[in-house]
């Protein structure tokens, strides 16, 4: 499905990804965990061709369904984004337009990627938001981003990304702002998308339990490199020192108290 080969990415002089390779099969769920600042978001930005101005791809190739992503033109990207590859951003609140309502943005997003009428788009957006455990969807559609809580914004980002049942879903900390109940529901929705539409998922999360529950494979990153990877349910058998340190740091109701 997607094949990343020897990717090196710099921000000015700083190397954020060092010779990074990852190959994901169709219908697989891969999770990336690892240190803050280790380059996880950079991986997703490179796949989707949305790296910032001050960055540079020093070397490497990315193939998506045998197309070389780094060689596509704007028009190709227009067809690919949303429909084939969709992304849930780490900070959805900032990706939304602050001066337009959620409804108008959602409808525009749907119309930009399909031939649906405005009315059909509205209905589809409602249907997607309802799956997200959001109460009072009508009100949410009329709201501006600043009128919504952190977790409500995050769920709007998830609903948008899931709308077109993409072949590849990139998710950057999709549940970090959600309470345990809502998180559990969103995890089920992601798995349902994966089961029903064979969506391949590449997910970044700091929640090792969610990664271990959802993913077929987990990569552990530090300083721009993959330093460990484990298969489903094998996370806690890892021999890697950093991985073990991470596991020992997971908050636990019966665990260490600091006060």
């Amino acid at each position: 499905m997607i094949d990343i080969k020897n990717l090196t990415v710099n921000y000015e002089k700083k190397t954020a990804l060092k010779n990074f390779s990852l190959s994901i099969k169709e219908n697989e769920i891969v999770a990336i965990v690892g240190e803050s600042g280790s380059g996880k978001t950079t991986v997703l930005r490179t796949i989707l061709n949305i790296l910032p101005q001050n960055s540079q791809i020093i070397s490497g190739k990315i193939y998506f369904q045998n197309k070389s992503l780094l060689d596509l033109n704007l028009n190709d990207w227009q067809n690919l984004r949303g429909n084939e590859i969709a992304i849930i951003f780490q900070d959805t609140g900032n990706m939304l337009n602050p001066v337009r309502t959620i409804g108008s943005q959602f409808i525009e997003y749907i119309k930009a990627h399909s031939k649906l009428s405005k009315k059909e788009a509205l209905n589809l957006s409602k249907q997607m938001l309802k799956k997200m455990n959001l109460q009072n969807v009508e009100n949410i559609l009329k709201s501006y981003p600043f009128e919504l809580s952190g977790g409500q914004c995050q769920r709007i980002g998830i609903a948008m990304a899931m709308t077109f049942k993409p072949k590849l879903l990139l998710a950057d900390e999709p549940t970090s702002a959600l309470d345990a109940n809502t998180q559990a529901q969103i995890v089920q929705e992601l798995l349902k998308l994966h089961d029903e539409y064979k969506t391949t998922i590449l997910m970044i999360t700091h929640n090792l339990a969610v990664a271990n529950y959802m993913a077929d494979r987990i990569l552990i990153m530090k300083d721009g490199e993959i330093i460990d990877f484990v298969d489903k349910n094998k996370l806690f058998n890892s021999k890697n020192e950093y991985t073990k340190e991470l596991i020992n740091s997971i908050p636990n109701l019966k665990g260490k108290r600091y006060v």
Partner: protein
Amino acid sequence: MYNCILEAKNITKSYIKNKKILDNINLKLEKGKTLGIVGESGSGKSTLLRILCGLEKSDSGQILFKKQDITSLKGENLRIHRKNIQMIFQDSLSAFHPRIKAWQAITEPIRNYNHFSKYELKSKAIELFNCVNLPLELLENYPNQMSGGQRQRLAIARALALEPQILLCDEATSALDVRIQAQIIKLLADIQRQRNLSIIFVCHDLALVKSISHNIIVMNSGHVVEYLSSDNLITQVNDEYTKSLLNASFFINY
């Protein structure tokens, strides 16, 4: 003796008529202690914190800081009072000015209250960077040139810079990997012991909240549904909503 530093009495807030976001909230923060807050997404936690630090007005109710009503402070008095309570916002990107470099952003609050040379400010910034474990190579970066978790640590450093008496943390560590998260939690606990800092810690991870808090309140749709003490959290839980939170968590079994 119980020494209450911050108290909220009957706080009520609505943005739209007849839709109460906060409905008669009462809470007490003890000096030198941590009060954890968990609750459903959209239950009003961030709104409550904004009201507690004076960024937003409640419709009714009172906020008492050391028994003094601060609900209607204005002008210079409000400015001086602000120094006492610092907040770390849930959304770290919009909490920073995009054209101000990291080192300047975290020393800006100190500059507002004191006079320092550029050299002094920069050494203060370096000290703060080390404190929250941020690489010094990021000193000259703009906030949008940092990763999500790096920016969150920058926000923590900025809040600590003024040495406030009360720190309000709104999901302040949720973008961090668990190892760095544990370091930051330990840092907060150390500062609490050294300076008798009082903390309100809003977070979705009940286990993390328990590890840093003395007491915990649970919120659901604008109400406080339960007051718990961290010492015997699990056995105390009565409320159905709190029980559902305990059951829904992805706990690690290993």
